[in-house]
């Protein structure tokens, strides 16, 4: 039987389908019997969903152009770096 703390640790892996079979069943069994963990699990999923929804900052055009210039230099002068 997994402890509450162990369940909380693997909740995200469980949701992503990354837990091996036996661990998956251990999590499900624990959740079936533990009200507190069911709620905690749901709430952590909510937090994970809000984290996944975070906006992404794109690179500054100048910085991207500078890097592309480096990339071209490397390609056009093999062995230069």
């Amino acid at each position: 039987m997994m402890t509450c703390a162990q369940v909380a640790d693997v909740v995200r892996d469980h949701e992503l389908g990354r837990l091996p079979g036996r661990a998956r069943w251990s999590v499900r069994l624990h959740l079936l019997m533990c009200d507190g963990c069911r709620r905690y699990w749901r709430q952590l999923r909510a937090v994970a969903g809000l984290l996944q929804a975070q906006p992404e900052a794109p690179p500054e055009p100048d910085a991207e152009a500078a890097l592309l210039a480096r990339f071209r230099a490397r390609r056009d002068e093999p062995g230069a770096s």
Partner: protein
Amino acid sequence: MYAALCLSVPAVPAGSVDPLVTRLRAGDEAAFTGAVRALHDTLRRLARTILRSDALVDEAIQDAWIGVLRGLDRFEGRSSFGTWVCSILVNRARTLAARDRHHEELPDDDLAGAEALDARPVAWADESPARLAERAELVAFVGAALEQLPPRQRAVVMLRDVKAWDADEVCEALGISEGNQRVLLHRGRAQLRAMLEAHLAGGAP
């Protein structure tokens, strides 16, 4: 038993090189620009866990890509490309932090304020992940809450939950043990859950 639960499968099988790396070696500009864009947000968030100033964060990202271009021919594909780029970024950011005394490396995590791990959660008015994720105000709140986490927790939660990386990739990129990764992740998530709970209880609009 527990250690076995946390093992995850590497993104690219050992011994084979990511097709992206092959394209980069061949000088494929679109592949390079695509990689710079795809990894930018991750690199920026990661650098900000080590450096205070935006200027140094930008410098660290540039340095990291230059390091990537230098090392491209030697990259053996033991880790995924993204993991490798992030590990270079972490090294460059630490070097910059050590060099400039005015922009010292951020202090190590103080875990004193961390929520008790076994605190019993109270019910929220709405606990549906799908519905909560649609509320822009809550997305912004959790984004700001993430910024308030201690740096190492922030780095781990960002890579695991914002970017959906596997545990072993995070350990590799940050140079931390599996045990540390697990503790930092747990504390960071618990802290964010508690902050969101307090926010929701405070009668947010």
